Each structure stands twice: as C-alpha cells, then as structure tokens.
C-alpha cells in the first residue's frame, strides 16, 4: 500500500490557559487515503476541530503545544516552518468552515477572496485569477457567476455563501479538503444540495476529505470511514457501514440512541447520554468516558475502567475494555432494539 495522504500519529495538542493546561487532543492517530472521505464525529470539545486546525498549523504557537506526527504525503507538518505551511494551506490542504457568513470577509468581494489563494499559490496574474474565480463560482452552481463574483458576501444567501466557500477551498485543487461542520449553519434543503455538491466535486477533483460533524445522518451520507472522538481521543473507528451497523463503543451507542427518529412516537422522550462532556483541564482517569458509561460494571476486572485507559488499534477498532463478544451481544440484545 502506498503512503496515506494524511497520517496522524499519536497527536497531543494542549493549550495553556489561566486555569491550567487543557489537553484538547490526547493521543490521536488516524490515516486518510487519497480520494476517500473520513467522517469525524463527536460532541463539541471532543477535539475534532482542534485536530484539523493543527493539521493546517493554525493554532496559536504561543499558547499551544503540539506533540506527535502529522504526515501529509509523508511530509512532517508539526515541525514545518511557517513559510512552508503557508505554501500548503489553501493549496494542498484547504478548509471549509462552519458559518460562511463569519468565515468570509465582509470587506472584499467574493471573487477577490476566491482569487487570492490562486494568485498566491499559482503565481497567476490578477486577471487570470479572477477568471478562475468566476469559473469556480460556476462550478459550484452559482448562477451568473461573472456578475456575482463582484458581489460581497452579505449579498449572497446562506447556501450561496457556502458554495462560494467551497469554490474558495477548491480553487487550487487541493489534495486534502477539511470540512468543519460545513452544513450546520444551513437549512436542511440547502444542506442536502451542499452535500451533493461536495460529493460531485470530490469525484472531479479526487481530493481526500475530512468531514467533521456531530450529525450522524450527514456522515452516513458522506463518509467512507468514520472515526468517533471523545474527550480528545478516538473511541471507535471503522468503515461507515461497520460503525453505523454494528457499533462497538458505549459512546457510539449513546450517540445513535440520542438521535431523534422520524418514525418514533411524537410524545416520546429523546434519550441523551447522561452527564456532560468532561473538562479537558482535568480529564477523568482511566477511560475518559467512564463517568457517563452505564456498562462499566460488566467489564472483567473491577475498576479497570477508572484506572486503565483503553487503547484503540487501527482498522476496525474501539477503545473499550468490554470484550469483543460483549460488545456484539450488548449491541444486538440491548441497544439495537431501542434504535428500532
């Protein structure tokens, strides 16, 4: 097998704050192959956005410590110089942010904002870059792109702004596209259009995509593989099929269980995961999920969940002390019936 497009190895990211050190990412490893889509799921604060900002080197170096390896095409990024990272950003690695209204500058035209990275990375003239911006706006389905390129972001609708954002990310034909909750701020109908657009463009550009979301419905639609994150680390990974059909980790069960269903009784209560996400200033000992886990008493060996942090392998894997048999039977007998 060739080297993966992106390979993250034992990544630790921590921030110095006034209250102490926040371990936002704590021992995370994953790979992404070319042309594939990895869905990263998790609650706010699980470290999914931080991981991806760190890939781009967009963390604040004054307050942040990064350890581990981030290899893009076999090239180490954590020790790369700022000027090298600048050449990669927007060129080899591009990012789509959650809220296109705040993520686009109000002061410059949409066309200019798309043209900027093309000028910078391809050394294109202003005129050529503008033509390219118009072309990209057409590709992402903006009607009358030549006119609309002269508009400012506030003159676009929410869905159009996100299309412009996508055009901006893809203008240099990146190998890796990181989409950080790109549809969360949009209407459901617009959301579906944007997801279709991203899939079409992936076919055309062949980029690898990291798709960050907390919406399992969106991830089922988009991702080839899924990594579930909790409190700064991966708790389960596998193909989308595997993770959604036969999830192994109590946290993933909780996520699936807390999703509202169309066919459920309108009066029925949602079943959220008990408790709140842990503080990363002072994370729980052992398995990070144990304070919220209702299955820890079934683990062989008392108190293991509170003392020993479960490891997670590569491929199809989950970070839980339950045995493989237990994971299967608990899911089939106790969780699946509740999911309907």
């Amino acid at each position, binding site marked *: 097998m060739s080297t993966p497009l992106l390979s993250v190895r034992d990544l630790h990211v921590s921030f110095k704050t006034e209250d102490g050190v926040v371990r936002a990412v704590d021992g995370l490893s994953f790979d992404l192959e070319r042309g594939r889509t990895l869905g990263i799921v998790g609650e706010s604060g699980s470290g999914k956005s931080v991981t991806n900002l760190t890939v781009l080197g967009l963390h604040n170096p004054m307050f942040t410590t990064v350890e581990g390896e981030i290899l893009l095409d076999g090239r180490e990024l954590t020790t790369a110089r700022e000027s090298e990272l*600048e050449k990669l*950003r927007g060129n080899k690695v591009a990012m789509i942010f959650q809220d296109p209204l705040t*993520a686009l*500058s109000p*002061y410059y035209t949409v066309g200019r904002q798309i043209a900027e990275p093309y000028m*910078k990375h391809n050394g294109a003239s202003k005129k050529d870059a503008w033509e390219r911006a118009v072309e990209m706006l057409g590709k992402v389905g903006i009607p009358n792109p030549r006119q609309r390129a002269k508009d*400012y972001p506030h003159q676009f609708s929410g869905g159009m702004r996100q299309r412009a954002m996508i055009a901006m990310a893809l203008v240099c034909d990146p190998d890796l596209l990181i989409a950080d909750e790109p549809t969360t701020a949009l209407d459901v109908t617009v959301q579906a259009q944007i997801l279709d657009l991203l899939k079409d463009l992936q076919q055309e550009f062949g980029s690898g995509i990291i798709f960050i979301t907390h919406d399992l419905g969106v991830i089922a639609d988009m991702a080839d593989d899924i990594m579930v994150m909790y409190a700064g680390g991966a708790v389960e990974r596998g193909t989308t099929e595997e993770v959604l059909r036969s999830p192994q980790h109590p946290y993933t069960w909780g996520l699936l269980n807390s999703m509202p269903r169309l066919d459920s009784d309108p009066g029925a209560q949602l079943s959220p995961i008990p408790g709140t996400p842990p503080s990363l200033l002072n994370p729980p000992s052992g398995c990070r999920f144990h304070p919220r886990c209702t299955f820890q008493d079934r683990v062989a060996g008392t108190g293991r969940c509170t003392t020993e942090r479960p490891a997670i392998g590569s491929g199809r894997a989950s970070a839980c002390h339950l045995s493989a048999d237990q994971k299967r039977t608990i899911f089939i007998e106790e969780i699946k019936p509740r999911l309907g």
Partner: protein
Amino acid sequence: MLRFLVRRIIGAVVILFLLSIVTFVLFFGVPRDPALLMCGKTCNPDSIANIHHVLGLDKPITEQYWIFLHNLVAGSSQFAQGPCPAPCFGYSYHTNDPVWNTLMDRLPTTVSLTLGAAVCFLIVGLGTGLLAAWRRGTMVDKTATAGAMVVSSLQIYFLGPLALAILVYQTHWFDKPAYNNFTGDPLTWFTGLIIPWVVLSTIFAAQYTRMARSAMIEQLQEEHVRTARAKGMSRQYVFFRYAWRGSLIPIVTIFGIDLGSLLGGAIITEYTFGLPGLGQLAVQSVFFSDLPLLLGVMLFAATMILLFNIVVDAAYAFIDPRVRLS
C-alpha cells in the same frame, strides 16, 4: 449617499438651533450682568440702563433671540460699530471686535495645534498599537501596553507644565510655546508649537495605542481572518488587509470625535501653553459674560463636532461595503 448627507446636515442644523436656545437661556439664567463689567468705576443705575439699551439687553429675551437668528442668517447694519455681514454674531461686548473676525483670527492657532498633534498621535499611537498587536504577548507588547496605560492616565495640566519646566525653562532646549503664522515664517511656526504638539499628542497617542491594539487583537480572532490564513495568505497580508480593515471602524469613530472636539478648542492645552486659540476664547467669553462671543464659540465648536460626525459616518461607507450597499 446624497440623501444620507442631506438628512444628516438637516439634523445638524436642528441641533445647532437647539444649542443656541440653550445657550441663550443659560446666559440669562445666570445672575451676572455684562453691563456691570463694562461700566467700570463710574457705575450708576443710569449708565447701566444705558449700556443695556446699547447692547439691546433691555428687549425681551425672545426678541433678542429673534434678532440673533436674523443677524446670523441675513447679517445686520444696525450695529453702531459698523456693518456686520452674515454670518453675523454681532460685536464682542469686551473687545468691540466683530465676533466672526475674532473666531477666524483664532482659528489658525487651533487648527495648527490640532492637526499637528493629530498627525503625531496617529503615527505614534497607531504604530505602537499595531506593533503591540503584531508581537502580542512578547516583551514589546507588554512594555507598550503598560506604557500606554500609564501615559494615558496623565493629564495635560500635569504633563504640560512639567514639559515647560524641563524642556523650556531649565534646559532651554526648546522655544517657549507661541503661535506664529505659518505663512510668515514656517520655522518659528513649527518651533513655537512643538512642545504643545508633543504634550497633547502624548496622551492621545497612548489612548490610540490601546485602542489600535485591542481592535487589532479582536479582529485577528475573527473567523474570516482565520479563513484568510487557512487559504495560505501570509501573516503580514492578513494583518494589514483583513484585520486592519476591520479595526478602522472603531478607530475612525473615535478619531472623528477627537478631531471635532479639538478643533472646537483644546481649552486646557491652549491655557497651559498660552496659545491664543478658540479654547482661550471660550473661557474668555464666559469670564466677561460676553454673549455674542459665547454664542459664536459655542456654535462654532458644536459645528466642528457635528461636521466630523457626518464625515465619520460617510467614512463607514467607504470602509464597510455592508454600510455602502444597504
């Protein structure tokens, strides 16, 4: 844009109108008679009544106000001192000079003082603020922030005499502050104003340092700035093209207010350095119960502030397309 300007100008005229009424009412509400100051040692009821009559103070207040408005708009030939073309504020009780001419005589001093100081504090203040934001968290930033904090809490009436004592009277490094016409001799104009400029701009510069730093730091945390970085734009580019653009809004707002009020007369500065500008005139007019001069200075100062308010609002449209296109 044109409609906006017309609307704002009408608004400003209404405010000036109200302000003149308030000034009138306050003047007559204060138990001080300008005639007492004017008649000197030979005061008796007859001479006071005579002065009241000459100044028109024996007429009802509403009529006096009407005459004031009329003169302002149309000018007047009723004054014993001579004709008074519009905008006519009448003649000063104290000096007998036409108020408008006095204002125009004093204006160059105030304008020189203000603009020179403004150039200094913009360059020094914004420059230091930008540097502190660029090197955020370093010794440079900490020094600039602490320095700005200390200096901005100083006052002109402390710093001014201190500067005079040390730089002028002790060491004789600088000339005693004075206003000399720029057209007469640019060099003495410059040397005469250098101490007032430095003192006035030091305190403002400290305030602009703090403002520019905090505005830039706030802007640098905006998501669209992060997007620009994620596109691979360099730190300099993002700093000056993206963050600076957004920081201009609060900076221009405060600068407009500061410039307007300084042009209306930097009272304390002018007093400290003995510069004959509009600020001194304002104090003098109150001192001598000089109604025409008081009205003139008040309305002139207010006009400056209102004018720069309009300029600031118009500037928003240039800075922010969301204002321009809505």
